[in-house]
């Protein structure tokens, strides 16, 4: 049983309320943090090796140390709770069941960064969770954790919840800031980065919910102890929201030392695939990361066992690997159609493109239409190459990473499942009633033996 740092108390009855949370040792990290200097807290977080849990995996301590600190200018911490990546629902769980953990993490982080006013930007669809958070903030306020001169330290802190209006793009940090300022949620052109010019043109740090929650165990146990959990540069624990064709979908806290195979098939985690079906493919880190066929998912191109951590999941680059992403683990069994799956994702990105820059605005719709054409048995061989060319021209050429996020799933699907696309084109009638099936996607990979 892996060590749990975030969800260890998640099942205590009434943990959502302040009394129970406090009784279970909550807000200890705030008391401890106030005995440290802000610089020491940042140092602890750096030492912990914590990486951003929102998807990009950027070292949190480093991000914090980049924050500009000009005299007389306020600084802000913003929590990105606009969790909209299809397949990802870990932040929802954290906020819904242990809201005080996020608040506690935010108090510590705000103290470390010198932010006297911080915000939780939550997606509009999580309407009831915003209420839960506001209740929890009220409780924390009544008990002296938020407000003026907290615990007599002289630190003033206010925390607000801001509801989004339901746009995926507002999960991009600069679009989030724009939206928080009351404007249309269009990503800003970087540089300047938020660390220099963020919310209301002031230095700002935007962190994911899980990242801020992880600050609590880091302060409680110490950065060094935290860094010993996990492996290599994948330290600490990570929440995985597992879904798709598995027996036990849900949120799992892993310490990044288990293999992908164990994660899918062991009873402790996903519990295998229902109805005796076989594994065909998996999107290991939320909808925008590359999809992998079963064989490359379980073993890397070098023939090693693939593990559930940042390095191993991205081993082989995009040619044979994927990404840890946000931890939205989507499993597809042999009855799933990759073309259909890719079309669904393309439809999502088309719908969510903000329309600010041309490649994403026009390209996402184009990709969706071509995929729909192939899916409905009207595709031609040249469409597959065209899709490849479109995604190639979107990737890297847009203002924000949403362009890449829209291009990668299409690229990976063609890269690994090209024969399934070709089968759709060659069997325009059959593809409407039958699936391509598993075929060779789980066959062992031939590893070239080097002398």
């Amino acid at each position, binding site marked *: 049983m892996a060590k749990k740092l975030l969800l260890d108390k998640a099942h205590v009855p009434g943990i959502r309320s302040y009394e129970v949370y406090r009784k279970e040792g909550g807000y200890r990290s705030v008391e401890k943090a106030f005995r440290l200097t802000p610089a020491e807290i940042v140092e602890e977080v750096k030492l912990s090796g914590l990486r951003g849990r929102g998807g990009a995996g950027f070292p949190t301590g480093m991000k914090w140390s980049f924050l500009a600190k000009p005299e007389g200018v306020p600084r802000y911490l913003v929590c990105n709770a606009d969790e909209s990546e299809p397949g990802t629902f870990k932040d929802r769980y954290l906020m819904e069941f242990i809201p005080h953990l996020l608040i506690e993490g935010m108090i510590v982080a705000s103290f470390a960064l010198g932010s006297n006013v911080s915000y939780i930007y939550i997606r509009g669809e999580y309407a009831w969770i915003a209420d839960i958070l506001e209740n929890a903030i009220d409780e924390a306020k009544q008990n002296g954790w938020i407000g003026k001169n907290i615990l007599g330290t002289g630190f003033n802190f206010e925390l607000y919840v801001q509801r989004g209006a339901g*746009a995926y*793009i507002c999960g991009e940090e600069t679009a989030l800031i724009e939206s928080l300022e009351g404007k*249309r949620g269009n990503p800003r*052109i970087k540089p300047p980065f938020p660390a220099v010019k963020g919310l209301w043109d002031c230095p700002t740090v935007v962190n994911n919910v899980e990242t801020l929650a992880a600050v609590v165990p880091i302060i409680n146990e110490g950065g060094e102890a935290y860094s010993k959990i996990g492996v290599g540069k994948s330290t600490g624990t990570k929440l995985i929201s597992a879904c798709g064709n598995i027996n036990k979908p849900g949120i799992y806290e892993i310490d990044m030392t288990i293999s992908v195979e164990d994660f899918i098939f062991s009873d402790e985690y996903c519990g295998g695939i229902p109805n005796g079906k076989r594994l065909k493919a998996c999107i290991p880190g939320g909808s925008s990361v590359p999809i992998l066929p079963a064989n490359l998912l379980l073993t890397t191109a070098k023939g090693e066992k693939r593990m559930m951590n940042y390095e191993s999941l991205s081993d082989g680059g995009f040619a044979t690997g994927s990404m840890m992403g946000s931890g939205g683990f989507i499993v597809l069994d042999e009855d799933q159609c990759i073309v259909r799956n890719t079309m669904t994702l393309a439809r999502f990105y*088309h*719908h*969510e*493109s*903000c*329309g*600010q*820059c*041309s*490649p994403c*605005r*026009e*390209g*996402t*719709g*184009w990709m969706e*239409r071509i995929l729909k054409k192939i899916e409905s048995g009207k595709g031609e061989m040249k469409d597959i190459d*065209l899709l490849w*060319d479109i995604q*190639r*021209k979107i990737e*890297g*050429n*847009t*203002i924000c990473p949403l362009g890449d996020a829209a291009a990668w799933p299409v690229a990976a699907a063609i890269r690994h499942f090209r024969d399934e696309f070709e089968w759709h084109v060659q069997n325009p009638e059959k593809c409407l009633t039958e699936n391509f099936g598993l075929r060779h996607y789980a066959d062992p990979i031939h590893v070239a033996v080097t002398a």
Partner: protein
Amino acid sequence: MADEIKTFKVTIDNITIDVPAGTTVLNAARQIGGDVAPPAMCYYSKLQGSGGKCRTCLVEVAAGSTADPRPMPKLVASCRTTVMDGMIVKNITSEKVKDARAGVVEFLLLNHPLDCPICDQAGECHLQDLGYEHGKEGTRYEFPRRTFEKEDIGPYIQLHMTRCILCYRCTYVADQLTDKRVHGILDRGEHAEISTYISKAVDNEFSGNMIDVCPVGALTDKTFRFKNRVWFTKPVDAHRSCNTPSCCGNTTLWLRGEEVFRVTARKDEWGEVKSYDGKPGWICNTCRFDKKKTSDWTIEGVTKLNRHSVISQGKYEGLVMPKETIQEVMGGREPKLLMNIHDESEVNNPKIHLSEINGPAHSENFEN
């Protein structure tokens, strides 16, 4: 030393120049000029915050600076990237840039109706120029294009959203030139549209400048719509003393004979309004829409055009004559000239070049 401006050395397509710190790569390239300057559809130097959106000006940064000579991993929007000392930029010398730019042009034309034959912007359209210079002959898009209903924005401007490439320039005009913002973007993705929120009219003395900043035919002058093709009209520089505060009064009149077909702000070689004393030469709606007689204006002379191939052709300067093929198909035989109309006509004297007459051509000009 008082206020010495720091200069940076930047190399663009193997040409090195010194520019003041804070200059963008695009503006540095424009100082070099010619093909080195990347095309820009959304950037407008006179509109704060514009740029970065269309992605046509993407360039490759082969070396970030002398201090940090690493190349930038992605192509960058040259209009929003400031130069660093020792930066090496590749524009037309980079295959990556050419490839990406062709992609962007294709994307921009994807939902564009290509109704140039009935579009008032034809001939001075930046998208036409862009497509001509960087685009492919055909499109690979085979689906229906998105369409919108035409919409009136106030009494003078018509919005034809179907043609819009969402450069956002007009919204910046609305924000920065007009007192109250009533113009914005609705919806998102390819269905996003510029709008005035329930067709609320933009009644501001400077709203007409939206037409000038629009790179395509999405915003057109209702007093000029379908009146003439731009290349049949003769542009002359003119001015009048305008009472509207902050209107520069310097315009280009587009004439046909004595008739003023339309009035626009004067444009520079990048298609942007010219500046006077460091201030952009925006013009007010009175100058633009109400002063349609040559007697309202003091005409200075024929406008020098250095952009837009089509209207430049209409001005007869640098005219490229079509290749004479009769000789070829007639087996080397010269065509026999029966009559030269110019020699017969008393009006159209070939010794007087129409384009060189300052102002409208009158019959007096042809009296020998």
